């Protein structure tokens, strides 16, 4: 504003002075917003009083009295609404984390495939991306839930994969790991391996800086990472006993029960988000100019090294910001779970709890602040990362 209007401020009339006008505008804007806020607040007070709803967060301690089909922490009907909040939050995070991992794997594969020298692979990847990014994610969820999982046979005639994984219209049951004899040894070995890897990395980098000699850090790290726990379990017994689901007369017992809602939402969201991640990855790799590859090659680096030391670090700088926003989208889209009744944050809290207690403002405020907190913290993290990684130009 000032940059443009500063020049010919005529003296005399205060209204023509850009400084004064700026103040005036701002005061008007603030007053308007405050007035609207007061208007809404006043209405809400009146409406609440009229309907006889008490505001406040006291209801969180009341017993919830409804069952939840999937809870990662102990939960029973006599637990409080506060407990329901944590169950919902964990379920939302579960979908987000599994979805992000799957979407990343599929998406990176797609992105690399779109740049493949192989024509057929390129076309397949393009078709996948063009199909799935132009379909609403909710439709995909419905499709997987109602058209793929629902028509499956009932528990008694479950489809089985090698007799250890059972799939039917009520659940997917997989072998579940239970702590075995060498459980603690296994984890300790893993931690030890990680420490060793970090130390090795430091040492190798210091040596490379000092002498220029490379060290096969990756392979040795891999050997450490796999070897330590393996040695541990060899000496002290296996870390896990696998509880394999068993087909009984009417249903399947044991194992890890995954509800179909979780399967459909995770599958649909990762298929959908992967299409976008694929495009992000492709754009990122293409942003590294060909000269970089040639320069690296002329320095005598082998193709694998060119990719690892020159292309990928530069491409990641372009890829990571949009990638995080895709992750954020996936986390926000996980709220679509409400449409098929997966017990996530929205369907539990903004759905069931709201209906039972009538505390619309409180439940919505809690739900929205959770998502706001997630997205604000991720974008802060992103800004920090961007600053750290930004090219330092002369």
């Amino acid at each position, binding site marked *: *504003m*000032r*940059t*443009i*209007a500063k*020049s*010919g401020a005529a003296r005399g009339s205060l209204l023509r002075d850009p400084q004064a006008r*700026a103040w005036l*505008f*701002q*005061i008007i*804007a*603030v007053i308007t917003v405050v007035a609207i806020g007061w208007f*809404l607040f006043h*209405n*809400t007070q*009146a*409406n*609440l009083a*009229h309907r006889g709803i008490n505001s406040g967060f006291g209801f969180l301690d009341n017993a919830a009295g409804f069952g939840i089909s999937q809870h990662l922490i102990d939960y029973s009907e006599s637990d409080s609404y506060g407990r329901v909040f944590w169950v919902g939050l964990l379920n939302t995070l579960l979908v987000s984390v599994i979805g992000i991992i799957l979407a990343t794997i599929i998406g990176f594969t797609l992105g690399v495939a779109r740049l*493949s*020298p*192989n*024509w*057929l*692979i390129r076309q*397949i990847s393009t078709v996948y991306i*063009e*199909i799935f*990014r*132009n*379909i*609403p994610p*909710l*439709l995909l969820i*419905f*499709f997987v839930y*109602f*058209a793929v999982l*629902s*028509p499956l046979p009932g528990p008694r005639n479950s489809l089985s994969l090698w007799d250890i994984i059972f799939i039917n219209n009520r659940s997917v049951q997989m072998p579940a790991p239970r702590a075995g004899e060498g459980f603690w040894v296994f984890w300790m070995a893993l931690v030890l391996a990680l420490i060793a890897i970090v130390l090795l990395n430091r040492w190798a980098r210091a040596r490379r800086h000092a002498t220029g000699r490379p060290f096969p850090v990756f392979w040795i790290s891999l050997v450490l990472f796999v070897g330590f726990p393996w040695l541990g379990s060899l000496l002290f017994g296996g870390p896990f006993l696998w509880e394999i689901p068993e087909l009984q007369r009417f249903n399947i017992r044991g194992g890890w029960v995954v509800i179909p809602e979780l399967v459909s939402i995770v599958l649909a969201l990762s298929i959908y988000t992967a299409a976008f991640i694929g495009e992000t990855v492709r754009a990122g790799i293409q942003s590294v100019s060909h000269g970089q590859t040639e320069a690296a090659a002329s320095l005598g680096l082998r193709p694998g090294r060119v990719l690892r030391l020159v292309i990928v670090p530069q491409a990641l700088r372009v890829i990571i910001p949009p990638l995080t926003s895709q992750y954020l989208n996936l986390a*926000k*889209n996980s*709220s*679509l779970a*409400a*449409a098929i009744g997966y017990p996530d944050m*929205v369907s539990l809290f*903004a*759905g069931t709890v*709201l209906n039972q207690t009538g505390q*619309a*403002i409180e439940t*919505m405020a809690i*739900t*929205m602040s959770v*998502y*706001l907190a997630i*997205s*604000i913290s991720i974008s802060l993290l992103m800004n920090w990362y961007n600053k750290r990684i930004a090219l330092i130009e002369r």
Partner: protein
Amino acid sequence: MTTHAFKPDLPAPSRSIGVVGWLRVNLFSSWLNTLLTLMGLYLIWLIVPPIIDWAIIKADWSGESRDDCSREGACWVFVQTRFSQFMYGFYPAELRWRVDAAAWLAVLGAAPLFFRRMPHRVRYGIAYLLLYPLLAYWLLHGGFFGLETVPTSRWGGLMLTIVIAAVGIAGALPLGILLALGRRSDMPAIRVLCVTFIEFWRGVPLITVLFMSSVMLPLFLPEQMNLDKLMRAMLMVIFFEAAYIAEVVRGGLQAIPRGQYEAAAAMGLGYWRSMILVILPQALKMVIPGIVNTFIALFKDTSLVIIIGLFDFLNSIKRATSDPAWLGMSTEGYVFAALVYWMFCFGMSRYSIHLERTLDTGHRT
């Protein structure tokens, strides 16, 4: 004296030209590539023939009821008999001509805008944008000038989806531009207000926003003010999308070189005139792909109104598949829905690419 005569060029080796050459370069250049090609072919063979078999060859196309389908392939009879419901929802059958009329008016009215050489194109466009919404409201909702009222609770199907998307973009675009200008303003109060607004709406999922429209808005508004469900949802969609549009437009504003602002000021233009005449035309042109992408996202997001019980396209299909007379038709229903959504979204993305190319005047840096 003999002059040196060039021999005619030999043709390129047959292995490097034509079909064979193309195959060698693109599909079988190395053993890894050959392996990938074979894997790709296997994948296609696994997926495509069964789909064609199901959707076309073994499908049933004509009939009246579920019994007319052999169930060996797709039963498109379902889509056929329910087609009008998918399109209009519960809009009274004898009044559906009004929806058709509104749609034709939209298409015919907008058609001249696509001819680049039409005289008074801008003026016509502005008039169209101002008049059409009123006309469409009159046709769809009615209630005056002799048309019977059709309450919004009876609207549905693809028509509702398009109405929400169109109202959403028409409202979100101006609001988003204002927010973007506000975010880049020199006045701290305005900036803070705009940033807060934008970040709030971008931080929450649309589902919670729609929930809010159905449970919180009635609390916020005075009791005598009774907005119906659709209006509340639209209001929220406009706010939600405006925040996204604002970020897109901000990108364009930031890309305009400082000299443009200074030149506009040097011409003696005030803030609004320099924005409208100089900055925004350039900035908006630059962000057309972003705006269209936001619009595509909005079009897909309209499907979420299912959560507050509106009968948009997806919801009418979901309802139809749970009809006892047509059980087991989920696949057909959702495939049809996917096809329709896909056509709209893909068409828009292609159009945006085309627009980007024709509007590119080479000023992009």
